Each structure stands twice: as C-alpha cells, then as structure tokens.
C-alpha cells in the first residue's frame, strides 16, 4: 500500500469522509457507556462525595489538551520540513479542538477546585501552565489567521507550535516539580492507580470517547480546510457528494 498517496489533499479528502462517521459513532457510543459507568456504576468517593464525578470529563479533556498539542506540533513540523500541505492543514484543523479541550479542562477544574480546595483558581504550576497552553493554541490560530498567504501562515504558525511544545512536559510534570494544590497523577504506567477500578474504567472509557470525538472533529475540519484552500483546483470542481 502506498501511504504517500494519502499525503495529497485530493486522495485524503474522500478517505477522511469515509472515516469521519465511524469516529462520530464511536464517540457517541463510548460516551454513553462511559457516562453510565461514571454515574451509575462507580461508587461515591469517600473523601469528595459526588463532586469527584467531574473527573470523568476533567481528566480526559486535560489529557486530550496536551496530546492534541503534541500531534498538532508534529504535523506542523512535518509540514515545515517536508513542505507537505496536508500536514500543515492537519495542524490547523487540530488547533480549535485542542483549545476547546484545554478550556474544558480549565473550566471543569475550576468547578472541581471550588468544593475540594475552596477556590476556583490558584496561580500554581499545573493550572498556570495549562492556561499557557490555551494561550498557545489561541496564538497559533491568531497567527495563522493573520497571514494571508496560506503556506507562509503554515510556516509561521509551525514555528510557534514547535517552540510551544516545551510547555507540555511542564504541564505534565508540574505536579512533581513544584508544590501545587493540584493532586499528583492518579494513573501512571509504573504503579497501581490510586482509585477504585470502576472509577478508573469509567475514566478510561471517557478518555477513549474524547479521543474519538477529537479525531472526528479534526478530520471534519481538515476536509473543510482542504475545500477552502483547494477550491480553485480541478478536482474540487468535480466533487459530487459531500
């Protein structure tokens, strides 16, 4: 199979169109299962009562916010180095969904912080670096939008995305490196998770649901970007379907 074939917007557009519905369905089904586990199977937390249930969106959104940034930076870098248009379009398509995930992580974090810490917000390392992530996403989108010529916009925004990558490990390790109100990682590869197994299961199912949602959203957006940028090329004119 020739994977480079799909590096061209013209062949990628219909392929993405076939994949998108599968990801939407997976996102819906997994959210339903995850929410069921989260609200009806997972027990009440003995310390936090029911407020801990915010975890079922807070952690998946926070994971996605960091992961989408890494993927966005990798696509941006590939677009910069190999000069492949589609890679840069993927980076551009990921940014709004990444920003949304970051906002959700911050919002649900504030609503969780209030009852458990007694405050909506503190300027500690974890929260501040996550806020910087939101500004990086917004900066990427604003910079890209401010340059008329798409390939120049891709390149300038790629530099910003690549430089900003340094913030992701800072977010991830902030709870280890600094004293912070935010708790440490509940889930890690090196030791047993510090929560009930049904809570963990609900969280992981929701995390996969957020994955599916993000892929569906990014693929949908990249298809629009392809049409917007390639509308003058002949193949777009011959499109019959959506």
């Amino acid at each position: 199979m020739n994977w480079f074939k799909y590096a061209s917007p013209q062949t990628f557009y219909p392929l993405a169109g076939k994949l998108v519905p599968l990801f939407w369905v997976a996102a819906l089904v997994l959210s339903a299962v995850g929410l069921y586990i989260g609200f009806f199977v997972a027990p009440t937390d003995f310390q936090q009562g029911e407020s801990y249930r915010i975890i079922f969106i807070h952690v998946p959104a926070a994971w996605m916010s960091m992961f989408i940034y890494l993927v966005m930076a990798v696509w941006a870098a590939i677009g910069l180095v190999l000069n492949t248009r589609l890679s840069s379009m993927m980076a551009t398509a990921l940014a709004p969904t990444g920003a949304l995930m970051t906002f959700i992580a911050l919002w649900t974090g504030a609503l969780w912080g209030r009852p458990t810490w007694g405050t909506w917000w503190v300027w500690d390392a974890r929260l501040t670096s996550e806020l910087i992530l939101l500004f990086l996403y917004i900066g990427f989108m604003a910079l890209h939008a401010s340059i008329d010529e798409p390939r120049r916009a891709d390149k300038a925004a790629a530099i910003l995305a690549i430089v900003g990558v340094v913030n992701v490990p800072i977010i991830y390790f902030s709870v280890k490196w600094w004293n912070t109100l935010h708790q440490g990682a509940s889930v890690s590869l090196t030791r047993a998770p510090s929560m009930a197994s049904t809570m963990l299961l609900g969280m992981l199912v929701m995390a996969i649901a957020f994955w599916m949602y993000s892929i569906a959203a990014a693929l949908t957006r990249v298809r629009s970007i392809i049409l917007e940028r390639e509308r003058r090329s002949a193949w777009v004119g011959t499109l019959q379907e959506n």
Partner: protein
Amino acid sequence: MQWGSFENFLAMGGYARYVWGSFGVTLVLLIGEVVLLRRRHEAALRDARRQAQLGGEA
C-alpha cells in the same frame, strides 16, 4: 441503582452545581463545535461548487 431517586441523582450529594456545571457546559461546547463544523463544511462546499461553475463558464 445507587441514587434511590431521580431527585437524589440531580442533587449529586449537594454538589449539583459543580457536577452539572461541568457536564452541562462541556456538552454545550461540544455540540457547539459540531454545529460550527457542519456550517463551515456546508459553506466550503457551496464556495467550491460556485468556483467550479465560474471556472466552467470562463
């Protein structure tokens, strides 16, 4: 069913506004993004077709 009644479920052990404030806002934002994605794609398709027609006449 651990909640006993629908009222208890809605009350979330006294944390209703925090829990539902989180899930509600997330739901609204995600649906909002889907609506925007749909609109953008329809607009992009319209523009592409218009462009193709102009190209055909020229």
